[in-house]
């Protein structure tokens, strides 16, 4: 059976926890979907190398992270591969040892899943414009639709 990992990354502080909030809601909303038995949800508070070990178990992984570019807060940027994610140099991960480095290491070691989608949710790094609850509902609907479509 196809196994799909939906993995959020981000510290619990400020809007960097957006991935955690989204993962919690996605897990709840997906329970009654047809795809429920194919989906495994997980959340890590940092994009350490353990992420690569974790992703090895899945055919497809959807990685959700907070990012900072110049788009409005709450915008989702979808990337259908690590290469396409890397091309967007103007986007910065919100982490010091960022997800790009971890995924780059995974690419060098040939450890990335066959299918990897990265969903970057725009946040305000100064936490002056937090992502609102209503926006999270919308984000989750959009993400769930993309995840199911990919299956």
């Amino acid at each position, binding site marked *: 059976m196809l196994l799909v990992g939906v993995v959020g990354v981000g510290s619990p502080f400020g809007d960097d926890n957006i991935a955690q909030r989204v993962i919690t809601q996605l897990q709840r909303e997906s329970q009654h979907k047809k795809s429920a038995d194919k989906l495994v949800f997980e959340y*890590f*508070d*940092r994009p350490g*190398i*353990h992420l*690569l*070990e974790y992703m090895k178990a899945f055919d497809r992984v959807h990685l959700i992270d907070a990012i900072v570019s110049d788009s409005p807060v709450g915008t989702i940027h979808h990337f259908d591969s690590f290469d396409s994610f890397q091309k967007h140099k103007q986007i910065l991960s919100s982490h010091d040892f960022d997800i790009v*480095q971890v995924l*780059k*290491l995974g690419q*060098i*070691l*040939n*450890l990335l899943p066959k299918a990897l989608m990265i969903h970057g949710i725009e946040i305000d790094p100064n936490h002056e414009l937090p992502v609102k609850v209503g926006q999270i509902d919308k984000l989750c609907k959009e993400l769930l639709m993309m995840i199911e479509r990919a299956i």
Partner: protein
Amino acid sequence: MNDQNTTINIPVIARVEGEGALDLQIRDGKIYQLQLKIYEPPRLFEKFLIGREPNEVVDAVARICGICPVAYQMSSVHAFESIFAMKPDNWVRQMRRLFYCGEWMESHGIHVHMLAAPDFLGYDSVLTMAKDYPEVVKRGMRLHALGMELMSLLGKRSVHPVGACVGGFYAAPSMREVKRILECFKANLSLAQDLVTWALSLPFPDEKQDFISVSLQHPHEYPMNEGVIVSDHGLNIQIHEFEQHFKESQVPYSNALHCRLHDRSYLVGPLARVNLNYDKLPTQITQLIEKSNIHFPSQNMFHSIVARCIEIYYSMLEAICIMQDYNLPEKAALSMTPKAGIGFGCTEAPRGLLWHQYETDEAGLVTFSKIVPPTSQNQARIEENLIWQLSREIPHATNAQLREHSEKIIRNYDPCISCSTHFLKIKVDR
């Protein structure tokens, strides 16, 4: 070759935990001043633990460090248990060792493969090293992941675990889960053996420095949670006697305290532990070492990477022994009866001795706390090591080489500035 008078500044030292800086001033071809600066503000943990209940403290101190939370939890639970006259049973004792095995594997695994190995193999980062040594990096990742499994088994999560409490653990792991992890450990044991063989074969600078090794020592086992504090210069004290021999002091250029033993710098951590406890290592490990050109006790600081790999292998062997004998306990924790008193806890964090002191009132609430982390203890030793090494290099090295070598020397100690506050930028003035 450099000018005789130069200032070298390394504003951020890469591949260490946290942030700090190094200022090096060279006058007339000699080191005039060298300062390892930990400039991040104090984190004030010792103050905001006051008024807290013991188990709140156990959870709070885990947040001091994302890399070695188990060490902070273990030093604190032992301190509180000494105040409340609690003697946890053998099951708790063994689980605490198992918990510690996980942390040593996780922490050493990251440092050896991601931070230190590129220095020894001549790469600027693990990303470039991974292209030529993919299997070395993969092995490190696997061992690191196994360590995290143990931390999650007992801590319920690998980062900032919450499973430990005064008296033991909030819950016992299931037989099934322990069996699953035991099988993973058995299947991957050869990785740890290969790791030690690999570390022993690395190219090491031929050096011998004069330093004091300090660690815990236990009569029957390699030290993790218990023992007396010993040095290779004759120290042998109970943990409550720490402050009679070790003194912390403030230096004007750093926010982290320097700790000295009888006014001298000293080394804590894996190399110090192996130096002082070599006879407690199992023959599987000592036989490997004895086939090599490296011998312990060693005064070559670069052998620290070997010591870390030895401790990864030791942790795997120890974890397998403990899990093979695993049984569900009647109770995972002793109940706690708070009272007023003073207690001490001292355990071996991945980076070395971690000493805690707490005082409580009759309700068991903390009225005083003091934490001496390993990186504070190693700070003066790191500065001495830098002066020793750079003095030899200044006549013929460029500023860029001095910067690079300084970073390597510092990284070799695996400093965790998150604990001592944070770490490294280097400035050289020549």
